């Protein structure tokens, strides 16, 4: 395996392409997301997205914030050559809702909120609460893993240059 610090910097574009592709899929190929789990699920963009456009040494950064923020400026940034570097997601399954931000460069999960769990007041509550939280974190993490697996499987295949990139370009410029 490559040295960790080299591979972190050399391939961080994969995280940015993943989030850019994910936005495209959420807008244009919802069945692909719904097919990732046996139970019905919904995934949509939450209250924050960051895009970056690097031209030589200059870095342009666009942040879109707010629960009902329009994403037109994001699409405009994509047209100019930007990629998505952070994306807040809302994931719903059954009556439960998760909200979290994926950082493209590191795949860190931040501002990660699970469905509400019961209060922890005594020693007896701790074990149950930890197991419940672990289960809830794992549900959302498994979804992001399935999405990343879909992406990376396409990314290393011929489908990426032949089908995916032309479709993403068409969407960006539509």
């Amino acid at each position, binding site marked *: 395996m490559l040295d960790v610090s080299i591979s972190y910097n050399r391939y961080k574009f994969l995280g940015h392409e993943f989030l850019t592709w994910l936005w495209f899929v959420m807008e244009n190929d919802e069945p692909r997301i719904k097919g990732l789990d046996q139970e019905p699920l919904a995934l949509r963009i939450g209250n924050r997205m960051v895009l970056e456009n690097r031209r030589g040494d200059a870095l342009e950064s666009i942040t879109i914030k707010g629960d009902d923020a329009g994403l037109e400026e994001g699409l405009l940034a994509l047209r100019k050559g930007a990629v998505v570097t952070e994306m807040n997601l809302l994931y719903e399954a059954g009556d439960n809702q998760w909200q979290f931000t994926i950082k493209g460069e590191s795949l860190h999960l931040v501002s990660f909120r699970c469905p509400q769990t019961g209060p*922890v007041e005594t020693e007896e509550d701790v074990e149950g609460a930890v197991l419940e939280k672990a289960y809830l974190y794992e549900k959302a993490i498994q979804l992001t893993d399935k999405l990343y697996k879909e992406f990376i499987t396409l990314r290393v295949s011929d489908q990426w240059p032949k089908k995916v990139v032309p479709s993403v370009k068409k969407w960006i410029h539509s």
Partner: protein
Amino acid sequence: MGTERIPQNTMGLLSRSVSITRYKVQGKLKEPVLETMASCLKKHAIRETDEDVSDKTVGWTSYDRPYAPDFSGSSFNIGTYFVFSLRMDKRTIPPKMLKKHCAIEMAKRLARIDRPYLSSHEKDMIRDDVTSFLRRRIPATPDVYDILWSYEEAFLWFFTTLKSANEDLETLFLKSFEMPLIRLFPYTTADLAMGLSARDRDALLTLSATTFTG
């Protein structure tokens, strides 16, 4: 005082909003696993730093008792997980406090000598003495970061994305358990955690950034 384990750690993995860095654990502990685990945690548990003057002390602590670690009775084992915490105690001297005490000591020194100035060597000596003096008097500030380790599935979640805390975790984990932690970022996730074939892993190495414009 009773011995009941009242939860002291209200932050971390049970809090309303968390941040997670994900790792893959490479290797296995010596059998019997629970005994090995308890022994490694105890050996590298946090030590109280009020007696020494280190800038920083790092060690393991109990998830539910971060200020009184106790790894007895497999208390770190919850369901199929190992749950414990990394504690980092740091002594930080406020810069303005250091500046004030250095100025006082320099004035005292100037009053004792015939010259109207101090050499840079004398100033450095005073600064070192003052730093050491203050460090003995300032208590260490603890930071606690929770860890959830699925031993069977060989993954670990660290509940912070702070770079320094992640570096301390990786160092202490290797020292304690003699197994490396591999941070999961875009390349390592693709290479190690997605079940790609050898051919696809080779293809991964040759990728370069896509241009979606033009």
